[in-house]
């Protein structure tokens, strides 16, 4: 069993102390990536529920930079302590409440007791109080609690704050302050200099008129920035001077000076001034000060990273990121930072110049479309032989994602447009089909008309290039069915033939002609229409070829018809359903055909081709159907809330709303059932892969034929062998995916120009030039114009450090 497709951007990522590793929360695990290669190094497994936060233990001295320890918190109510270089679980603290966020201020300024023993370590966690039941939104379920990590217990009675939902805790760089947002307020706590169990943390609140989304602390000064849903950024300067600086005895005696001028500060908030910056048009998601506090980085739904100069408010932009920004994180290495995007992609930026150096992209999340185009196609097509999933993305691309390797293979730009997050979507890719061998692809895109003008349906055929997942445009067909939308595209299993059907009432068969002209001429190949068919002018809703390609099955709304694809002759009319059919599929080499109709009376029917009649049917809301090519077995993904018959017996697993049923065509009783989560909009496919790749013992000869892949609505997927009933142990295996942590720092030439292409010159063995590995080339430190450079004091230490380390390397 292989799982994957987790979101990389579910929570804030963290850098290791040397800036060479990146820790991402990916579902139940934490994945460690290398920042230089962008590949996954290792994985921390141990939590039973999604990991919500990672906190790398900072190291003050550069000598111990190699130490890699981190704390993680998870929804399963545990806090773990890891050595992520090995990787090894060191310690586990059980809190028993789902943790949504965690900060450990004690690590940021280590306190040493007078006797030299380190004091107890306290963590502040944002938990959900599961004891308070009820769906009412009034219930304050989110709590901020304090936790003693040294003694692994939650401190009773210390609840700092209660909110409606569990909030994300933000901590300042010095560890002195931490805060949360709560609707239109910000709560900020100041930690006592010596944190102990009984010390009171003092709290203050700042108010705003709009709902706040994010806050950020200045690393050195008492400046607090907050972003709100309207795109405004508020900067409070000198917050908490009154409340936090006053001693306990002075609090009562001190008189608030009302005459003091405090521009922008609402009411009695404790801040010197509050200024507002407004550039973002939509809500601010990412907000962060630079490590020296000179700049403020902000990003939001527009997909533009804005760099504000804190003193002047001048802006610089990194635009056309193409997806809403979620987080901005800077690393201990001053020349590296990252932005996390909502499309499950993480861009590493080279800092002073803000150039994109690497991208780590996970599986693309499902994209939202207008409802009329969403019904029939779930946006995923499978390359059965290579084990690839082709996923349409919001920026008009098709992402090819290797399900076995759990990584992106390539992206194909379908429409030459830039996606602008926040705009109304007017152009989108509606359909996507891959041929069985994965060498051909067809896409359909729709441009919505503006008040009836300029709508366009466009069918594109692509041919694969030399590498897998690389496609070049072969043919563009504008308005293939006049202006009617395309309902389905299917490829012929053996020939270069495809069928496209439309709601306008016709289907067209396309063939690819290859005229190989004289060899100096470019080989011209294009798709052209071979024939057009209609059935009683009814809208054609689904079409598919039989596995041997001799029959074309076409669903004319509710009627299943069979055609000869070469001669374009109606062979037979099989039968009729109650509701329009959305999916047709032949089951292997058998004589059966599966149809799925949705709507008020959903139906899953199996038709016998020899008797030209219905064989058996269920009243099921089937979301997806996958048929084995060689065997007479098919799998159906069913939404269980609509099927009463199954829910009563099977839905014992909480949170599951779907079932995968495995049928043999001759038998209406399912062979196996699995219950799954997030089934709405999911996809199923049988992949043809040798099972040896899965590291499982092949017990049965028969079982090596195909394995089943299930992708849920969040594009998380699981691949398993449908025959192996006992297969419940999760043996994640990333074939050759984990790059061993061997980071010979790229130096000299390679750090500037990248690796040299290896030349294979026969009989000429040039001696290899060895570079002295140096930690960090100083060329990059001073690059960039002077006003964007970090202050010289910072640079100087880095520069000298790199020199020192280089010398030691030479001595080795």
């Amino acid at each position: 069993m292989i799982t994957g497709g987790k979101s990389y951007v579910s929570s804030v990522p963290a850098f290791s102390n040397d800036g060479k590793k990146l820790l991402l929360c990916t579902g139940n695990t934490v994945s460690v990536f290398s920042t230089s290669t962008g590949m996954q190094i290792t994985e921390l497994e141990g939590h039973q529920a999604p990991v919500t936060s990672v906190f790398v233990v900072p190291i003050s001295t550069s000598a111990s930079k190699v130490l890699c320890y981190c704390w993680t918190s998870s929804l399963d109510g545990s806090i773990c302590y890891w050595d992520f270089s090995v990787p090894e679980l060191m310690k586990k603290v059980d809190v028993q409440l789902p943790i949504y966020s965690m900060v450990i201020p004690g690590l940021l300024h280590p306190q040493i007791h007078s006797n030299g023993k380190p004091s107890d370590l306290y963590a502040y966690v944002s938990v959900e109080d599961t004891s308070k039941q009820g769906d009412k939104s009034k219930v304050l379920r989110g709590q901020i609690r304090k936790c003693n990590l040294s003694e692994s217990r939650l401190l009773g009675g210390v609840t700092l704050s209660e909110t409606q939902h569990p909030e994300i805790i933000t901590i300042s760089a010095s560890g002195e302050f931490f805060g949360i947002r709560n609707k239109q307020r910000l709560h900020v706590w100041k930690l006592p200099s010596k944190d102990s169990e009984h010390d009171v943390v003092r709290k203050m609140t700042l108010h705003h008129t709009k709902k706040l989304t994010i806050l950020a602390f200045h690393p050195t000064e008492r400046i607090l920035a907050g972003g709100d849903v309207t795109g405004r950024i508020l900067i409070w300067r000198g917050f908490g001077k009154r409340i936090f600086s006053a001693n306990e005895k002075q609090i009562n005696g001190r008189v608030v000076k009302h005459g003091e001028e405090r521009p922008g500060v609402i009411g009695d908030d404790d801040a010197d001034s509050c200024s507002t910056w407004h550039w973002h048009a939509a809500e601010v998601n990412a907000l962060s000060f630079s490590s020296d506090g000179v700049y403020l980085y902000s990003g939001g739904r527009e997909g533009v990273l804005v760099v504000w100069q804190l003193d002047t408010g001048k802006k610089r932009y990194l635009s056309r990121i193409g997806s809403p920004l979620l987080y901005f994180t800077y690393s201990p290495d001053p020349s590296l930072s990252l932005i996390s995007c909502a499309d499950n992609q993480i861009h590493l930026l080279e800092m002073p110049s803000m150039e994109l150096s690497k991208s780590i992209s996970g599986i693309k999340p499902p994209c939202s479309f207008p409802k009329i185009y969403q019904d029939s196609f779930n946006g995923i097509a499978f390359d059965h032989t290579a084990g690839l999933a082709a996923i349409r993305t919001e920026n008009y691309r098709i992402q090819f994602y290797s399900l076995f390797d759990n990584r992106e293979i390539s992206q194909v730009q379908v429409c030459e447009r830039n996606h602008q997050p926040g705009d109304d979507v007017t152009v989108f890719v509606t359909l996507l089909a891959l041929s069985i061998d994965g060498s051909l692809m067809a896409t359909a895109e729709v441009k919505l008309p503006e008040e009836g003008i300029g709508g366009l349906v466009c069918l594109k055929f692509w041919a694969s290039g030399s590498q897998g997942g690389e496609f070049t445009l072969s043919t563009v067909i504008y308005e293939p069915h006049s202006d009617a939308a395309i309902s389905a595209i299917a490829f012929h299993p053996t020939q270069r033939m495809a069928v496209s059907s439309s709601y306008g009432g016709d289907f067209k068969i396309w063939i690819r002609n290859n005229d190989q002209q004289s060899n100096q001429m470019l080989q011209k190949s294009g798709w052209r229409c071979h024939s057009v068919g209609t059935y009683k002018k009814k809208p054609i809703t689904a079409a598919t070829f039989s596995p041997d390609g001799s029959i074309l099955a076409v669903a004319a709304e509710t009627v299943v018809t069979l055609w000869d694809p070469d001669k374009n002759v109606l062979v037979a009319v099989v039968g009729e359903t109650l509701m329009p059919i959305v999916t047709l599929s032949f089951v292997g080499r058998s004589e059966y055909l599966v149809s799925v109709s949705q709507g008020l009376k959903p139906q899953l029917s199996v038709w016998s081709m020899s008797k030209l009649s219905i064989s058996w049917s269920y009243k099921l809301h089937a979301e997806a159907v996958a048929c084995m090519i060689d065997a007479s077995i098919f799998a159906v993904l069913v939404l269980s809330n609509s099927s009463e018959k199954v829910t009563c017996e099977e839905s014992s697993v909480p949170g599951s709303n779907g079932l995968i049923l495995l049928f043999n065509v001759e038998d209406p009783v399912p062979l196996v059932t699995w219950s799954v989560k997030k089934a709405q909009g999911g996809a199923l496919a049988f992949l043809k892969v040798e099972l040896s790749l899965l590291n499982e013992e092949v017990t049965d000869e028969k079982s090596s034929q195909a394995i089943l892949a299930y992708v849920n609505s969040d594009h998380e997927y699981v691949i398993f062998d449908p025959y192996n009933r006992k297969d419940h142990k999760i043996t994640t295996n990333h074939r050759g995916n984990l790059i061993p942590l061997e980071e010979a720092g790229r130096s000299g030439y390679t750090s500037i120009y990248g690796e040299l292409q290896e030349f294979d010159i026969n009989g000429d063995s040039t001696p290899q030039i060895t570079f002295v590995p140096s930690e960090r080339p100083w060329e990059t430190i001073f690059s960039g114009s002077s006003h964007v450079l970090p202050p010289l004091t910072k640079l100087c230490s880095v520069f000298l450090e790199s020199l020192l380390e280089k010398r030691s390397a030479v001595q080795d």
Partner: protein
Amino acid sequence: MADGQLRKTFPVKSRLRPTPKNSSSSPESKYWRSFKTQQISGLISAITSIDFSPEPPHDFAATYSASVTIYDSQTFEPKAKISDFTDVAYSATYRSDGKLLAAGGESGLVQVFDLKKRIPLRQLRGHSRSVRLVRYARLDKLHLFSGGDDALVKYWDVASETELINFQGHKDYVRCGFASPASSDMFATGSYDHTVRLWDARVSSLSSVLQLNHGKPVEDVIFLPSGGLIATAGGNSVKIWDAIGGGKLVYTMESHNKTVTSLCVGKVRKNGGEQSQQFRLLSVSLDGYMKVFDFSALKLVHSMRYPAPLLSMGFSPDCSARVIGTSNGALFVGKRKKDPSSGDNDISGMDKFLGFGSLEEPESRVLKPTYFRYFQRGQNEKPSEGDYLIKRPAKVKLAEHDKLLKKFRHKEALVSALNGNSPQSVVAVMEELVARKKLLQCVSNLDREELELLLRFLQRYSTMPRYSGFLLALCKKVLQLRADDIMTEDVLKGHIRNLKSSVEEEIRTQQSLQEIQGIISPLLSIAGRR
């Protein structure tokens, strides 16, 4: 992987157009089109004959009316004019060394001219009627043959002005002939009695060696360069015969619509191609077409139209010029730039004369930093075989409307596209605006001049089938949105009137097309039933 994904802008693109499958841009027709054609007019009457000098610089003689003009083949300036004719001159032809020129005439007199002095050196009298054919034998400087409307072919010794042989056999006007490239003693003549006869001066039997029946009055006959094939032109067909194989018909080309008037052999410069494949048969006809025929592949490779009936043509032996004469006194001269790679023939010719062809260019000096060229060195370096090429990323070219669209200045972008003269880009910009849902807003914001631009565009292109689906819907919206502005301005009203009439015309066209379809479709269905 995803590098370069950021900061990418896409220029708006019009819809792709289908490319014709057999595009005419084969290298062969590219070659024939590379002759830059210009017209020399002002010659008084039909140009009946054009002959290139076999020796460089390959001047050519054009015969028309009662004169022969010698033109420079590089500049196409007239070099000399011979007008010592009492009557209409015909068939001026060069001797093999290019020093003498012979021409016939309406009076039956054949004259030989010295090109330098332009006076008749010899006058050959013998024909009783007009002489339309005068040719020197190949490589033979002493003899020429002539054919006349008295159906006689005569073989002359030029020096003594005596007629050596009088070939009798043709029964009608002899209008054309050609000396065999294989033998100096053989030549072919074509006559209006539909036959082509091959004569041998060594055979004294006075009858032809070979007789070919073309089937139509023969207008022109030539030997193809090997000497084994003969091409004849008559009627609207060109026939190729195997002379060695006893006069067997090889091929008939019937691609002209009117009488083929002249044939000539052209050469295609090919790098590394075989010599035999370089020659093409060129034919011109009264229908105004020049056709190029590849007689080794028996394929028509190029065809070109001129706006007049064509009578004669000539092709320079060094492939640099092509001259076509018309019936209305205009010359179409085509000149080709000499490509340096294929200039080897000329250089070898120069070597013969000048004798220093092997001299190398002076060695280039070693570059020093004091030279200006030192700083430019290596810029024109070409990659060699084993080099690894690092390609610079292609720069995206943005038109002005693209730049404006990038700045979200939608109306300006639309106006800038309308000011340009490419309807594709205007429609592409409009489609992009539709995708941004800004088109109608742009239309309502246009001021008077800009609205006039838009209406003019709509009037011109909204009935074009490629754009009509989009533009007609837009027309309606524009009229709805801007009705008030249009009513107040007379200029705009005029545009609307024009638009209306063009739409009406299009409707009429469509109706008549539908009528035709109605007539044809029953016929087709009947034909399909059988």
